[in-house]
């Protein structure tokens, strides 16, 4: 009853054939498929494969050792263990098939319905689902045994209903994830009916996760079914793996090895189902996982760092910085030799389009590249010291205290589980080593400084209780709380409304002047650059194409790329003039 996968956005699957092929290419997937095929074929052709009928008794072969016609020996009643295993495969698979079919049909249908239409229907169905999930299935099956009788098929039918919540939750969550996708809106606008939207757009997405769940649930139902039979709640006249285990259990002190075979049959079958599910899951997650980091190429040897900048007024001097991430064929460079100079008290704009490497440059300076990323060559001189590839522990001592960071998205950058006061005092206590009460005093002052109308209330609020603009002020307060020399702000106003942006820029500008901080401001917005920066570096494809004083850059851009970008700015346009149309005919 574990939810097999919570993957919200599986990688798109071109076609079913593609999925099947990719599962078979996966070695474990191939092994699993072969094992499973063997079990299924055995089940189908049982009478042809088994040397004896399952109920053939030979009294002298009770608990007999293997050999003499009985491949795996005889059981407690003198029946051929091998033949019973073969017939058991058939009965076990039929039971599993019933449970899975019922569970998948009931669960997926209900999940589609509840997920797509939502509202009261979803509440009711979810209540039923939660209720079913809170019942221990085996106990219920035991309690119902008297009326279900010894027919394992009916028990598995009931069990299927009890497993339906797994499918229900999976489907409902997937549908909830998909139904707000814009392409579903687009389909609705196109005039598609709900049914066609479900069939065309939603089933495509849930297909693979449901397949995984089918595999897992099939495994679970084989185990539970065998468990019931092991307890003696099945029809003892029918050969099943669980029933065989019961027989072996009864004779355990005579032939301990007899417990091996049916158990192995169950385990191998279930294992191959699980492996199959894993193979499909692997395929789905291909896009989400970073390339395997095995056998990394040695990073290019770092050339001599050169000497610290002579000019003591230069706070940060980045020289020929190269940042790379590992991929299959070696290192992919995202920053390809960037050089920047930042003076004390200066605001440097790092501007460029997506993929230009501006954010990666900033993270490299902070020493916070994403997993796998590293500085391949170049140096970053910070206050007379090269901090490129500094050991993490040394870097940590710089961060917060001397180099601070303001992120783009205010909401996701506050820990939702802690009060704002705690999140502001923690770095002060850690970095400055001051007492909690001293930190609290300073935080309240800071909150007032960054424009919080009620610092005490903000102090004891959780992040979700304040607005995005307020959250960004909190993050700025945290960044400056330890009086850093360098503030790295990554698109600090991009997620904010334009009037809030103006206020936050004002705040940043004032704080920068007050504290004489150096600031690197990463942005794509030339308006923001014009508003707050002293100097600008324009980046393209991991390189700086132009660096200049802000006024000169806007007045006389040198590089063609800068000219093109400035040309695309829409600030001064002549408004369009409306010409009434006589006809309304629209010819496309």
């Amino acid at each position, binding site marked *: 009853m574990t939810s097999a996968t919570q993957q919200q956005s599986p990688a798109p699957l071109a076609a079913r054939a593609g999925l099947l092929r990719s599962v078979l290419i996966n070695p474990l997937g191939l092994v699993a498929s072969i094992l499973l095929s063997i079990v299924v074929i055995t089940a189908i052709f049982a009478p042809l494969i088994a040397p004896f009928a399952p109920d053939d008794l030979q009294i002298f072969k009770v608990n007999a050792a293997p050999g003499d016609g009985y491949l795996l020996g005889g059981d407690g009643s003198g029946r051929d263990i091998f033949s019973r295993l073969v017939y058991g495969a058939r009965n076990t698979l039929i039971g599993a098939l019933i449970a899975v079919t019922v569970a998948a049909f009931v669960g997926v249908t209900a999940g589609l319905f509840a997920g797509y239409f939502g509202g009261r229907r979803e509440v009711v169905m979810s209540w039923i689902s939660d209720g079913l999930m809170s019942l221990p299935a085996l106990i219920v099956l035991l309690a119902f045994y008297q009326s279900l009788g010894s027919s394992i098929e009916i028990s598995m039918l009931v069990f299927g209903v009890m497993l339906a919540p797994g499918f229900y939750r999976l489907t409902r969550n997937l549908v909830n994830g998909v139904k707000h996708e814009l392409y579903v809106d687009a389909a609705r606008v196109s005039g598609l009916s709900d049914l066609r939207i479900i069939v065309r757009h939603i089933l495509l997405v849930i297909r693979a996760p449901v397949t995984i769940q089918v595999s897992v649930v099939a495994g679970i139902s084989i185990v539970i079914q065998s468990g019931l039979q092991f307890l003696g709640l099945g029809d003892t006249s029918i050969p099943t793996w669980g029933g065989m285990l019961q027989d072996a259990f009864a004779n355990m002190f005579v032939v301990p090895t007899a417990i091996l075979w049916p158990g192995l049959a169950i385990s191998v079958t279930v294992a191959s189902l699980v492996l199959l599910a894993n193979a499909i899951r692997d395929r789905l997650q291909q896009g989400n996982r970073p390339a395997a980091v095995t056998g990394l190429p040695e990073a290019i040897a770092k050339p001599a760092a050169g000497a610290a900048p002579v000019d003591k007024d230069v706070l940060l001097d980045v020289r020929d910085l190269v940042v790379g991430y590992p991929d299959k064929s070696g290192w992919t460079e995202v920053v390809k030799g960037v050089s920047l100079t930042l003076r004390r008290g200066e605001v440097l704009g790092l501007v460029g389009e997506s993929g230009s490497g501006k954010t990666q440059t900033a993270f490299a300076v902070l020493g916070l590249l994403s997993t796998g990323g590293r500085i391949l060559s170049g140096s970053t001189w910070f206050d007379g010291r090269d901090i490129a590839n500094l050991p993490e522990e040394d870097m940590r001592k710089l961060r917060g205290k001397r180099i601070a960071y303001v992120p783009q998205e205010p909401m996701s950058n506050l820990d939702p589980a802690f009060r704002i006061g705690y999140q502001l005092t923690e770095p002060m206590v850690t970095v400055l080593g001051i007492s909690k009460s001293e930190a609290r005093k300073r935080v309240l002052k800071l909150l007032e400084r960054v424009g919080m109308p009620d610092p005490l209330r903000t102090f004891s609020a959780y992040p979700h209780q304040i607005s995005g603009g307020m959250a960004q002020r909190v993050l700025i307060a945290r960044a400056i709380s330890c009086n850093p020399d360098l503030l790295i702000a990554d698109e600090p106003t991009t997620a904010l409304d334009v009037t809030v942006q103006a206020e936050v820029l004002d705040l940043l500008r004032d704080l920068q002047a007050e504290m004489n901080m150096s600031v690197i401001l990463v942005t794509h917005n030339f*308006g923001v650059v014009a508003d707050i920066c002293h100097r600008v570096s324009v980046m393209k494809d991991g390189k700086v194409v132009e660096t200049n004083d802000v006024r000169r850059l806007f007045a006389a851009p040198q590089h063609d790329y800068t000219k093109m970008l400035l040309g695309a700015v829409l600030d001064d346009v002549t408004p369009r003039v409306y010409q009434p149309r006589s006809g309304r005919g629209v010819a496309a």
Partner: protein
Amino acid sequence: MTDDVIVECIDVNTHFGALHILKNVNLTVRAGETVGLVGESGSGKTTLGRAILGIGPVSSGRILFDRQDIAGVPPRDRKGNAAAIQAVFQDPYTSLNPSMTIEDILTEPIIARGQAGKAEATAKVRTLLDQVALPSDAAFRYPREFSGGQRQRIAIARALALSPHLIVCDEPVSALDLSTQARVLDLFIEIQERTGVAYLFVSHDLAVVRHISHRVAVMRGGGIVEFGDCDQVTANPQHNYTRRLLLAAPVADPVRQVERRAAFRALAMGA
């Protein structure tokens, strides 16, 4: 109401539970015209767009299209020209189903509306791709093979498939890079001039709205605070909020931005 008005919202209200999202909204769009709908987050601009599209709720009021009231009527139940109101959404990465080919995406509206059979619809794909300046071999590829700007072109092509009289554009260029944004906006204008389609252009970015619109409506807190000719609203705003909004957006000119900043601060003091 003049003759060339194609959409008219009359006292439209929308509630989500206890929240009053749209408050007595009145708005008109004329044939072949772009009306820019500008506002900050939570102003209700997207809700209004969705109400006109028929994928968002309307609690009261009327939305007239071709003189029929389409308020609260889902797209599939709309008749005549109203059936062809189309949309281009913000995020080009989620507005196209990743597991469908471009051809499937473009033919879907045509087939769904029963305008043509599969074969005829497929034949139209090339014309549509042509209109948005994409090569015709794009038809057999999947969305992930295209860049953000190209995907937005595909979304525009899909919107054009039904020869609509109105396209509701919800922040269609805000996820795009600056240079791409300019090119996509030019494509919008070019298509309008050629086909005479009208746009309701929803955006938070005044510069973008000013670039493409004939008239501009400024929304705040679920209501329209100012509605008029683009030139009038953006050069000589009457409402205080519009002025604030205008001055808040920094311009790409350090010298002028100093003045604007001062003006914004002065306005904030006064307010």
